[in-house]
């Protein structure tokens, strides 16, 4: 009676890849993981996306292992005898006007950049999702009152969408005082509307489908429908947009830092580092050039990854 166990071909059992790529998943978990696997393969086989992925992964890696990467040099310890040293064996990227090691400051600066990007995402994505899905779902299903709520919410979104991002962020950072938290608030304020629009567009197309009607008939509450059934389906286009927006967020944050309104010294923020090299750009080019290059590479990485993700997750738009 040992024949029972051979219901699946032994080869598919043994190889993980075969299990993931299976056309007939046996469980929900296998189906979900299989989807993730196929997306990952598509992403990695796309050269631009792979480049972006490598850059973003490197950013994460450097942020986590910043002390190790920088050879346990401090990003803020000053050494005035070594100020403005040229790049060389002792200091790979040279030193700045206080004799601080620029390589260490770049490495620790990844943490600042990542903090800003993550905080903005944490603020912006939920607001956009909440506004967009609520407006879309009520507008599509709740009759006249729903239509009014939809119109009001989207009007507010349009108002914020038409605001000039950098200037408003400037005014906010100026009023609240310089600092990372205020820069994040200022950027978030002008960054959420596109997410609300995307979430609404997705929701409107989902709201009238049969599976939602089925859930309604089973007596699910509006909140349950929104959070359990609609939000998960909006996530992929939201992630694409978020990745593409990261580049813009990084550039805005760096711009605020350059103007002296972002992270304050001695925090190793790249935009502020460019500003500190401004006066010595003619003689000590590395002080401003290298942090600027770091900003450029990271925002390029997010742009490439975003383009790639869009091709993989959202084939209809390419």
């Amino acid at each position, binding site marked *: 009676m040992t024949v029972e166990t051979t219901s699946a071909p032994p080869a598919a059992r043994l190889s993980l890849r075969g299990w993931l790529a299976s056309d007939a998943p046996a469980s929900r978990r296998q189906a979900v993981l299989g989807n993730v696997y196929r997306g990952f393969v598509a992403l990695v086989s796309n050269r631009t996306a792979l480049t972006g992925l490598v850059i973003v992964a490197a950013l994460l890696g450097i942020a986590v292992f910043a002390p190790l990467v920088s050879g346990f040099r401090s990003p803020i310890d000053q050494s005035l005898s070594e100020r403005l040293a040229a790049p060389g064996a002792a200091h790979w990227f040279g030193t700045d006007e206080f004799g601080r090691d620029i390589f260490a400051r770049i490495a620790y600066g990844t943490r600042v950049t990542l903090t800003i990007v993550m905080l903005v995402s944490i603020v912006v994505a939920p607001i956009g999702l909440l506004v967009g899905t609520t407006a879309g779902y009520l507008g599509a299903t709740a009759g006249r009152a729903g239509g009014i709520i939809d119109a009001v919410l989207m*009007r*507010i979104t*349009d*108002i*914020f969408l*038409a*605001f*000039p*991002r*950098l*200037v*408003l962020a*400037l*005014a*906010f950072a*100026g*009023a*609240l*005082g310089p600092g990372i938290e205020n820069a994040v608030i200022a950027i978030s304020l002008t960054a959420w509307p596109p997410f609300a629009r995307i979430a609404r567009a997705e929701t409107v197309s989902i709201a009238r489908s049969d599976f939602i009607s089925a859930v309604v008939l089973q007596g699910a509450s509006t909140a349950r429908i929104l959070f359990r059934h609609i939000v998960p389906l909006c996530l992929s286009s939201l992630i694409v947009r978020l990745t593409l927006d990261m*580049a813009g967020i990084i*550039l805005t944050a*760096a*711009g605020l830092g*350059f*103007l*002296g*309104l972002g992270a304050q010294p001695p925090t190793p923020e790249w*935009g502020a580092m*460019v500003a500190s*090299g*401004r006066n010595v*750009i*003619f003689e000590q*080019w590395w002080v*401003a*050039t290298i942090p*600027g290059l770091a*900003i*450029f590479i990271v*925002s*390029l990485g997010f*742009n*490439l990854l975003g383009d790639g993700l869009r091709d993989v997750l959202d084939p209809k738009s390419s």
Partner: protein
Amino acid sequence: MSGAWIAGVLWRLLSLMGSLLLTLWGLTAITFSIGRFIPTDPVLAIVGDHASRETYERTRLALGLDRSVLEQYLIYLRKILAGDFGTSVMSSHSVLSDLYQFFPATFELATIATVLGVLVGVPAGVLAAANRGRWPDRLVSIVGLFGYSMPIFWLGLIGLAIFYGRLSWVGGPGRLDTGFEDIVTARSGVILVDSALAGEWEVFRNAVSHLVLPASLLGYVSLAYISRMTRSFMIDQLAQDYVTAARIKGRSFWGAVWGHAFPNIMVPLITVIGLSYASLLEGAVLTESVFAWPGLGLYITSSLFNADMNAVLGGTLMVGAVFIGINLFCDFLYKVFDPRLRAA
């Protein structure tokens, strides 16, 4: 030009006015709130730490700070509608007259940059679409991608170091060299126009040498956006049957591209150009800071560091209003002139 179309245009014009008013109102609400967020006490900022209780109270009443928030907002709104943005602490002029003085520099920079962006970006986008997947397409995408990812303040610094510091090909920061200032009377505030009108070609040449670098950098940013959008509009059009039909009738490939497909992307393209122009007007802040360009951006940032909140909020309101106006106007143009939307 049927009656229905005209009625449609009028209706859209009305709704444009509606959106414009609503959005501008939102903007004033935000600048007002920012003004109230300031952690410092506005009364103390005026009377100083050592003022007596009475002076403090008198100033507080004069500023209207004893009234409800709503009343204060209405007073603020009424003042703005009358063109009263308050007085700048830094220049001791009214903020409005300061804005008049600083606006032309930004206008000049953004306009030249947009012209450059269009002249290069549109042909580049068409070329990329016509050669889809081949090297011109890749080149245009890479140039565009770099433009999207570039911190412009950094590029400006590097540009200054190379073209001004090393090679001396261009003028340095500012709009003119010191010897050339105050030769031409400011009629429009746009130096290129003023010096040309006065026939001062030396001044004109000097102004061009200062303008060329910041304008090309901003032009590059605008090019990145314009070429990408042109490419995607053009790819849509080139896939249509009418292009194939034109080719079958014997029209050359480039004849079909420019003569048949291109006219059809003009409407969305105008919208894109307008949006890019609006974003340059506001995005010039960083470029102006790098090049010491005396425009609105520099005005706002330097006021910020002098805690001159009237000037900051007035400048924000001005840039915001121009930005919103152009944005919504482009949206309107698109809706009125796009034949597919006309019927709706």
